[in-house]
């Protein structure tokens, strides 16, 4: 089905690459086929995808594989790095004019969410930056658009400038600036009407408004669900007006949001904000690196790779591996490992990422209850040192004590002990399988 995560799709190719010392061209080609499909399904423009794929291929082929990573992860890492780079690297803030008021123009297609975003942005400026914005109702075309902004203004207790729908938007904008100066507003946010990028007349109107108000910021509001056409839209608005930034709306939906990449690629302006919900405070600064993972459909897995590189202590990992192999694993190790894994991100996504886990019965689409992990921790922490090292000590009365101490029940303690035994068995098998295949050993049982 369409929305398969990239992680799942890549599993076949990753498997083939296991144990190799270098990334070979054929492997990369195969993986990039999947990356290409994943990006296209995420609505990234096909031209952008084409260029991206060839860039990554070039970089990946022939690379030595870091000790801590499998070849597959190495390629994914490169993909992610390039994607983040494409998305603009770091966060970007809203402009401030040297001489107030700072004038912000909101532009975009119909239904992208300009009016809602205008309200959100005003609130953001007041709450986070302690500014006093004036919102300007310059959409005289859509029925009740002015009313919508006025209602928002009332809800937020934010001033709205409007002259009704019989005055030209250029005139409205002009008077609004004068008003802002007079009343000492330091930001003016002009909500313009939605329009098609190919509508000559209405695009001309934006030109005129721009001419009159000389905005410090022209924000193109883009629906995160936009498909391939995002490129045309962004290009047209940018060529015509010279946009300075993008707001990506409706990101609280389940779209992958590939439009973000397309827009960024053709306009080369930063995405400054993301709309994350219907409430007025649901406007967030845009995080390029998070968006990269989202588009690839890999959740926090990529940061997991990075964290695995840095957070796992070599020595301890080696010791752990030895213990696993020799079946000396104790509850203490278990606890430590649990803590390490938890520091890396949501567990269910983590599980889905494990090479092979997707195919393991019962592990696919598993829902990990984070609360349960807390219980497990409590149980282990209620054990004595001796018990942690020698689980076979656990008899009925000890278990009752542990259950009481951890606020759980004896069956829960039993379940954990049983799971622990099974895990030990599984690890022994797994480490047996991997032995000798890869230097450096495995850091975590699933990596």
């Amino acid at each position, binding site marked *: *089905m*369409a*929305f398969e995560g990239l992680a799942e799709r890549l599993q076949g190719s990753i498997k083939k690459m296991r144990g190799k010392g270098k990334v070979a061209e054929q492997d990369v080609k195969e993986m990039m086929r999947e990356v290409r*499909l994943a990006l*296209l*399904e*995420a*609505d990234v*423009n*096909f031209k952008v995808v*084409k260029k991206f794929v060839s860039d990554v291929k070039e970089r990946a082929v022939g690379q030595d594989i870091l000790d801590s990573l499998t070849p597959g992860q190495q390629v994914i890492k490169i993909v992610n790095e390039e994607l983040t780079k494409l998305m603009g690297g770091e966060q970007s803030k809203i402009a401030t004019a040297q001489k107030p008021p700072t004038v912000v123009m909101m532009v975009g*297609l*119909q*239904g*992208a*969410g300009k*009016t*809602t975003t205008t*309200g959100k942005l005003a609130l953001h400026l007041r709450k986070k930056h302690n500014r006093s914005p004036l919102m300007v109702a310059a959409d005289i*075309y*859509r*029925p*009740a*658009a002015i*009313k*919508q*902004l*006025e*209602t*928002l203004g009332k*809800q937020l207790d934010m001033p709205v400038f409007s002259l009704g729908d019989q005055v030209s938007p250029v005139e409205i904008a002009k008077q609004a600036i004068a008003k802002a100066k007079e009343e000492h507003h330091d930001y003016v946010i002009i909500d313009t009407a939605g329009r*098609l*990028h*190919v509508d000559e007349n209405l695009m001309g109107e934006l030109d005129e408004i721009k001419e009159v108000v000389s905005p410090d910021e022209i924000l193109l509001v883009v*629906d995160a*669900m*936009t*498909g*391939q*056409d*995002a490129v*045309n*839209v962004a290009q047209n608005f940018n060529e015509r007006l010279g946009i300075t930034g993008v707001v990506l709306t*409706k990101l*609280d*939906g*389940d*779209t*992958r949001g*590939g*439009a973000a990449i397309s827009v960024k690629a053709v306009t080369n302006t930063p995405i400054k904000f993301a709309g994350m919900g*219907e409430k007025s405070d649901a406007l967030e600064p845009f995080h390029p690196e998070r968006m990269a993972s989202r588009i690839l459909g890999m959740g926090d897995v990529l940061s997991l790779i990075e964290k695995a590189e840095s957070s796992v202590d070599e020595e301890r990992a080696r010791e752990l591996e030895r213990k696993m192999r020799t079946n000396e694993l104790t509850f203490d190790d278990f606890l430590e490992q649990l803590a390490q894994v938890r520091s890396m991100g949501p567990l269910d996504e983590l599980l889905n990422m494990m090479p092979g886990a997707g195919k393991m019965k019962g592990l696919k689409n598993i829902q990990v209850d984070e609360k349960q992990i807390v219980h497990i921790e409590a149980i282990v922490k209620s054990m004595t040192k001796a018990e942690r090292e020698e689980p076979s000590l656990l008899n009925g009365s000890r278990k009752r004590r542990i259950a009481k101490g951890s606020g759980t029940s004896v069956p829960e303690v039993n379940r954990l002990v049983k799971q622990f035994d099974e895990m030990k068995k599984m690890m022994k098998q797994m480490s047996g399988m991997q032995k000798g295949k890869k230097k450096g050993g495995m850091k975590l049982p699933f990596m």
Partner: protein
Amino acid sequence: MSFFKKMKEKFTGQSDAVTEKFKEGLSKTRNSFVGAMNDLVKNYRTVDEDFFEELEEILISADVGVHTVMELIDDLKDEARKRNIQDAKDIQPVISEKLAELLQKSDQESHLLIKENELTVILFVGVNGVGKTTSIGKLAHKFKQENKKVLLAAGDTFRAGAIEQLEVWGERVGVDVIKQQAGSDPAAVMFDAIQSAKSRKVDILLCDTAGRLQNKVNLMNELEKVKRVLTKEIPDAPHEVLLVLDATTGQNAMSQAKVFQKATDVTGIVLTKLDGTAKGGIVLAIRHELDIPVKLIGLGEGLDDLYEFEADQFVHGLFSDVLEQVEEAADSGPK
């Protein structure tokens, strides 16, 4: 008989004005699509792997969706082999044929189901900003022109200014709007509306709802409730549940269609904003995978710019230039 000949025959008898409007409204969409197709045929004289790869890109650029495109391409490859097509020019009609086939799987249910002499209830659903309220305004106008008695229900009680927006449309078109205060329960508005519709002997009740992203479980539950209220008052209502889709939307439209269908048994799609450069190709994938037909399309901002969808006409609109070329070629060629 060739596909284009068949197509042409279907059109004789249809009013030229409507076809012209279609052509005009779709001009932006068509130009880029057909331009790409023509370039493709020009650049690749023979039908080979590269040709199909490029074709794949053209279709993907129309938002048709990777899954459907792959199937389509496989189909075309088979067809090319079967018919022994090597010249790129010769495969072009096959492509159009396949696309039209996808869209007009079953023609009969692509029209709105309107009851004779009885109340017809139409519920509009969709994500935020796709044009639900605008589509209702236009459709109300259309029915009004047909001398039907129309009533609107302001079921978007959430978004600021939504009720007023529908009221403005009501005034413009000259139909009444049933409303409550902003923030009230939309199900209650629907109850009111259906009662008034019955007592006023209205022909058609158009129900607006608030836009909602399909992954908001609570909001989808609310929508189910709205629908239940309608069904409780009239067992076979709503007679139509129209999912409004923005043509610029990409692959997420599939998820929208799936989830809204599950919640409200969508009976058709209104594809809006087709007058831009977006091609709305995702409706092909939706038709293909979920079998939801497109019933109406929005081609502009005017009152009259909502049309009943005709797959033939749509494909004709998209391919009219190609059509003419092919005909010319056929006419000038040896008999």
